[in-house]
Each structure stands twice: as C-alpha cells, then as structure tokens.
C-alpha cells in the first residue's frame, strides 16, 4: 500500500516535511484504545524510524508474531524495531 501525492514541483510534499531529519522513516497506524491515556487514539498515524537508538522517554515499536505494537521504552524490552518520531491525527 502507498500514499499518493502530486508531482507538482512547487508543492512541498508531506514526505519531504516528515522525513527531513529521518534516515529510515515508516508509517504505522494505531489500532485500538490501548494508548489513549498517553494521547494516541485509534486511527492515528505514527511516523517511526527504524534503526534509531531509543532514549528512556521514547515510545518504541516492537514486533512479534502478533504484529507491531507500541510500547514505552525501557531497557531490555525485546524486539524493539523502531522509535516513534511523530504523530499524525486525522480530526473528524
């Protein structure tokens, strides 16, 4: 699946904006209400960076046979694959 943008050179594209400082950015979409307490709602998009080094207060993406999930980072949590960098919310 891909998101499409115009190839009009006069427009700054969303990816240019979102990826400015990121080496390896990916998009993920939050499903469910598990993280509502920290302000991440069902349907929100997350820009995440693979291979980035997480710091203690970061949210990270872990992966296992159930799929991806978002966790608060702590030393020693297994299968950390990416660090959450920004949040995109679609307002109703």
């Amino acid at each position, binding site marked *: *699946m*891909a*998101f*499409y*943008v*115009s*190839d009009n050179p006069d427009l700054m*594209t*969303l*990816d240019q904006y*979102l*990826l400015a400082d990121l*080496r*390896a*950015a*990916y*998009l*993920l*979409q*939050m*499903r*469910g209400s*598990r993280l509502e307490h920290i302000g991440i709602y069902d349907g929100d998009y*997350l*820009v*995440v960076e*693979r*291979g980035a080094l997480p710091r203690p207060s970061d949210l990270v*993406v872990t*992966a*296992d*046979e*159930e*799929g*991806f*999930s*978002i966790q608060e980072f702590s030393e020693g949590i297994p299968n950390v*694959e990416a660090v959450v960098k920004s949040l995109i919310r679609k307002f109703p």
Partner: protein
Amino acid sequence: MNHTWVIHIDGDAFFASVEAANNPRLRGKPIVTGHERGIATAMSYQAKALGVTRGMPMFQIRKLFPQVIIAKSDYDSYELYSKRMINIVRRHVSEVHEYSIDECFGIVLTDKLEKLQEIGKIIKKEIRSELYITVTIGIALTRVLAKVASKWHKPDGLTIITTETADEFLMRTQIGAIWGIGRQGTIALRDDDIQTAYDLKSLPRELIYTNYHKRVREIWHELNGQKVERDTDHTHSKSIIRSRSFPQTNNKEIVFAELSNNLEIACKRARSVGLKPRSVYLFLKSTDYRYIRAEISLIDPTYAPSLIIPHLRKYFIDIFEPELSYKSTGVTLASFVPDHIGLQDLFGQMTNTTDHEHLFDTIDQISDKFGNNAIHLASSMNSKTRSGSFSPKPLCIPFLGVAI
C-alpha cells in the same frame, strides 16, 4: 597501490523479504508473492526450502504446500525499499549503479582487505537495521567475479574474491552459473568440454579470440580479473537518456506513443548538443519490474527521430509482450558522432537524412517559439496529450500497517 574493487549487493529473496519486513506475522514463514499474477514471482527461503520455484502456478503451490502464505505483490513497497537500499549503499561506496530492483553495483578504492570487510559489514548492518531485510554482498576485481562472490553464500553472506583466491572459487562454479553466459552459451561451452568457470578462465587468449564471440571474450577477461566496460554500461559513458513512467497499461499503441515521445525528446537534446547517435537503446518496464530491452544500431548516425521511428517500431513489435502490463519506457542514445563530421555516403541515403535533419532544425525553431508540444511526431500523439495531466507518485514512506 589502491585497487578498484567492484562490490555487488543483492537483496535476499527481495520481494518476499519486503513482505516480511512490512509484516512481522510473516517472518520466518514460507511466503510466496505474485498472487495477482497466478504464479510465484518470489519466494522466501523457507518457501524455497519446501520446493517452491519461481514461476510455479499458485494452484499447484496451494495443493502441494498448503502451509505457504501467498501474498499479493506490493510493488510500491518493493520500489521504496529498493531506493532506500541503494541510498544506504551510496553512503559507503562510489559510482553506485542500480542493476535491477534488488541488486546494485558500486566501486571501492582500497588496497586493504580489512577495509572491504568493514564496508561490506556496515552496509549489511545498516540495511538490516533500517530496512529489516538482509542482503548478500560479493566483492571482487570485476563485475563477473563480484557476482560469483555474491552467489557464494546466500542469504546474508559477505564474500570477497581476491586474485589469490579466485581459482578456488572458479573451480567450484559451474559454467552455467556465470553471469551473462546464458543458456546458449552454456551449451556451446559444454560442447567444448568447458565445465567450470575455471576451465573457461584458463583457456589461452588465442583460443578465446579465435573461437568465441564477444560476450564470451568479455567474460573471459573478467574472470581473469580484467575489467571490461560493457555495452550495457552505456549509461556511464556519454549518452542521452529519456524515460518516463505512465499509468499502467497493456495497450500497445499507448506504450509505443510513450516510447516515440521519449525518442523525440532525446533526439531534441542530441540536436541541441550537435551529436548524432549511432546506437539507440530502448527499454520497456513492466508493472512487475521486468525490463525488456533492445538495441538498434544505425547505419547512418542521425538525430532525426522520423528516421529512427521505423526501426524503433520494428524492435518494439519484437519485444512487446501483450500479456504484460507496462508502467514506463525509456530511450538511450549513445555512440555519438559530432554532426560537423561528414560521413561517407555508402548507401546513397545521405540526402534523405540531411532533409530530415533540416526539417527538425526548423521544428526546433518552432518549438523554441511556441513550446515543445507545438509540433511533434504523430506517433507520439497519445503521450503528448497526456503531458501535464496528474500523474501521482507514491509518498516515499513505506506503510507498515497497523500497530496495537
């Protein structure tokens, strides 16, 4: 003294690996891509181990290997991962040349094997951590040897072939496994009792030059550690390239119009620098990333597209496969002759050529005044009328699906 090393980076089971990178539930499982085409276009190593082969029909896979996960190809993702893979390689290696969606070549200057090891390892590490796929790397003094090296230990391998170790590798490489030999070449060489790459490499130069065609001679040089600039390297030398993608289609006339438009624009560039091409390369790119190529040699070099079109049409009809869907075409002009150099008129064609070229001088003047689309070849019509319309391109962020 520094040697110029060729590094070859090859994505392991690339399409299937990207599927697994995008979806952790698929990791470590037998995956096959190509659901939409009804045949396997790529397999994960687990699927290969079961016995699935490329091109195997899906119904057969379902029947024989019910545990295999069949995925629909996601070419947008494959392309994004491919671009990122090449960008990572570019951080460490110069003259990176994309050979296909899942492999590229580059150049490393060094005299230290440790340096080669180090570069190989860092590329693998960054690709692994940023893309969640693995690659196999081969490094050697020539492209053909680098390909032998990258085939050596797959997946996730790193193999370096030096002048000292080459023979060992080549003795254990079957002739048919050498890059560029092809099926016909393999049969011909086997008939001459040449079984391994080492057998070919050890043939005396005189024998190679009297008995074999150019391609085999080139491979012989490369096996012996001598670099050969191939015809397919024309993108490196002086050339004019024009390609464009379009909404996917299997309509022959639309695809030809795109090709014709590319030729017209490339020829205009050639006229503006006063160079007439002797060679015209064309390619069609299908939606599943197959490249179909042809090469036209012009007897009289010319930059009048109207004189090249009949050849283009002929080659196009030869290579166009109606069952494929296409997304891009391109034209490369090469082997240039400056237009102030007069050529002998061996076939009495020159007057005709000159007439056409004068015509296009006039057309250039008209386009300068009224815009590029004011006047064009009828064969490019379909492509011209599409110019300026919205052609979407994917955002360069791969979408990994949902997280919980």
